[in-house]
């Protein structure tokens, strides 16, 4: 993993997606964006142009797996499920995120 800003942002999106999927249900891409927007009360908006490449990259890395299925309204859609490796990745990312926010919090508080 590199340390540039793009990676940082990408890592954040990965974190969000993995966290949403970690409840165990398999979801299609649109459901994931909806869920993120819903929980974040529309503060976080995920662009499809970023989401789908991220999903495919994570699938390639073995963190999620995908399969074609049928959506609630009977349409063909690709569903994503988290893998064991994805869960380990999530744990790492969460820990990283926690330490990062804590660090930022400390800076904001004490500077």
């Amino acid at each position, binding site marked *: 993993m590199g340390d540039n800003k793009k990676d940082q942002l990408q890592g954040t999106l990965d974190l969000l997606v993995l966290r949403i999927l970690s409840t165990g249900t398999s979801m299609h891409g*649109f459901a994931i964006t909806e869920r993120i927007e819903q929980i974040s009360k529309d503060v976080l*908006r995920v662009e499809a*142009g*970023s989401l*789908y*490449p*991220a999903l495919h*990259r994570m699938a390639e890395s073995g963190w999620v797996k995908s399969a074609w299925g049928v959506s609630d309204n009977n349409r*063909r859609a*690709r569903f994503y499920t988290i893998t064991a490796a994805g869960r380990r990745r999530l744990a790492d990312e969460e820990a990283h995120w926690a330490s990062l926010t804590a660090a930022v919090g400390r800076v904001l508080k004490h500077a």
Partner: protein
Amino acid sequence: MSAWSRFVNLWRSKALTREFDDELRFHLEMQTERNVQRGADPVDARTDARRRLGSALRAREGMRDARVMVWIESLVSDLQHGVRLLRRRGGLAALAIATLSLGIGANAAIFTLLNAILLRPLPYAASDRLVAMVDRFTRLSANDAPPTVPEILDVRDRTHTLGNIAFFDTRDFRITGGDEPARVFTARVTASLFPTLGVQPALGRLFVDADNLQGRWNVVVLTDGLWRRNFGADPSVVGRTLVLNGAAHTVVGVLPRDFSVDYPGLSTNEAIEMYVPFQLYEAYTSRLDQFVNVRRVTTIARLRDGATREQASSDLQTIARAIGTEHPELYQRAGKDVGFQMDVVGLHDMVSRGARSALTFLLGAVLLVLLIACVNTGQFLLAQSLDRESEVAVRASLGASRGRLFRQFLLEASVLAFAGGVLGLIQAMWLVQVMVALIPGHRPELDTLSIDRTVLAFTAAISCASAAIVGVLPALYFSRANFSPRFAVRGATGAGHRARHVFVAVEVAVAVVLLASAGLLIQGVRRLQTVDHGFSADNVTVMQVRGIGSQATRPIASITYQRFVDQLAATSGVEAAAAATPLPFRNPSGATFTIEGAAAEAATSVRRLAGYQIVSPDYFRVFQIPLREGRVFSVDDVPDRTRVAIVSETLARGTWPHESAIGRRIGVGPYWLTIVGIVGDVQATPLDPARGQQIYVSNLQQFEPNMNLAIRTVPGVSITEAAIKKAIWAVSPDQAVFNIQPMAALVSGPLAQHRYIATLLSAFAALALLMSAIGVYTAVAYLAARRTREIAVRLAIGAQARDILRLVSGQTFAWTVGGLGGGLAATAAVGSVVRAAVRGVTAFDPSLLAAQALIYLVVAAIAMAIPVVRTLRAIDPAAALRVE
């Protein structure tokens, strides 16, 4: 995503794009629907959805990039990782590469020969349409005999599937007018041979059909080789006159450089230097004369356009049936059908027969060597990765998938196999040259040998296969292990190394199979070589003279030969001289004989067959064949006296078990021969030590223009070629004397191919032995290194060196013995393969196998002892205990 679907994805990007589009379209539709649900105008809703989707194109490209880039990046990093690891273990990696390269190199070299002889098409136009014609006698179990000239002419007149039909045989011609009379190995051909093979002259013309008619014999076509060697590549050679067999011939043309038909599979064991037209005399073309059953020509035909080989086969069947019905006197013996059939065989199959089984056998042997090399290298990778167990475990727990680990092994194996393949190819180029230089006999296929695309493809294929085997072995080991802290425990106790030991057992088994096969072959060859042939070849020199030509009318030939023999016998250093057709050991033609006084029905139902040789009186003295009873031939056995014969012991005892054969008469052909002597049995053919029935007649009574001469020299005295030629020329100054050689060379010559195969196989077996010994060594060395601490503890509490040896090597030894047993069992099966591949190898000798097993155990024991002893020397118990 599996490696396969990923690979497929690279090529079916269209389908992939459609999948991306489907996914994006779904997203777009869902977004639009949601917006409408929230009360937006459908058009606005869609616009909004589009906006929120961002550029669909960008998303799609992003998805593709994600798929491909992640794969490539990880591939590159794994490759770098692999190369780094291999470089860190430079010495061992070099050993692994060297091992693989030896295996791959041997395979590439053998395959180069196989490709040249079995796979490459013959160097003729549309050569896959060329066939050879053969006769079969199903009731006589005689297969693929050459057809007779009348049969070929009948087929030519009646076939509707064969276009051109040509035939040829070979002769020694005597050329005079140069420094000394010389012999030219010449083919007598029908004019149709050259158009059938699609060859054009380099100079002048080739033959026309009229050249095959009687009396048109005096034209010759030179090969490129003879033209360059004897005529200095003189372009004005066409029209020159040569004196051949004492008569003037005109050179009409020269053949192109690479043209030849002198393949051993086509009954031609030497390079043809010159071509003359086959004279279609009445004696050859009719079924009336003495040559009616002589089968000496090789036939080559070209399938007509549109005709298949199967059609040609059934065509010839029909024609053969007709011929059989038309000539019952030839094809029905004593009222019984001999099962006469004719068939076509692909010309390439005909040319390569005999070499096929030997080459595939050798390829099998080197593939086994490569298997050992792969297992060895797999062991090396496994040893390296077991050392890396913690690293592997860490990588696994960090989320590296099994597939990723598997790929890591495959990549490392590929790096090794690629390097091994390149090195192997270089070795092969060298090895091929050595093998071709040593190959016995004349093989025109090898004149234009090259490492061509087929060989490169084969080398690439076996390198890839090696990489797969080398990579899969350690991967299998790890795929069964679950990546848990148990790793550490396993490392410390040295238990759980079954995988390594299975490798060792496999290597040992394969090496033993090769070793035993080589032993079997060498033993077979030695047996054929050292068996008592019934005659003595020591101090015997043989030679040929040809082209008695105008003198070859009876009985002058006999007289001329008798004068050669007398002159040679009078030469100083010569003990005795004789003439013979053929020489002993050279497959005498069989003659059927009848017994005077035997009941008529017995004479017809029991046909007796014996070898038939025409010899001069001193033949038995020259070859030291013992006289058992009666007398040998004398110079008084001349045509107008009683026709006499000498028979072998076996024939005499088999025919007259209770009385002496002397004075009895046997019928051979039109003559009754009175038996005057009985001599010891001799071996008739090189590959069969059996000694059979033999009839000898005197050359003074039986006309024969083409004879060999043989002289026995006084022991310790060698006679020069010049002295021999001088003696011959004293009788007949125009005589060409050639093939002057020790009889011993003729005896061992036919076994040359056997010896060649045995030598190659021995080399490969030695390689296998060495490699498997290295395998045993590395296994034990690894175990010893892993258990250094335990060994130190045991030494500290008083264990002896042999206890340690037993502790460390015991398991390996058990597996080695297991492999040995498996190998010996497999050898019992392989023995029949060896016998099938190499004629004359018969016995399956348990004592030989026991000796081989013993050799192997000694080698394995040494390989096991070295690392243990080294460990013991290196250990300082106190220091070792302090570690960790």
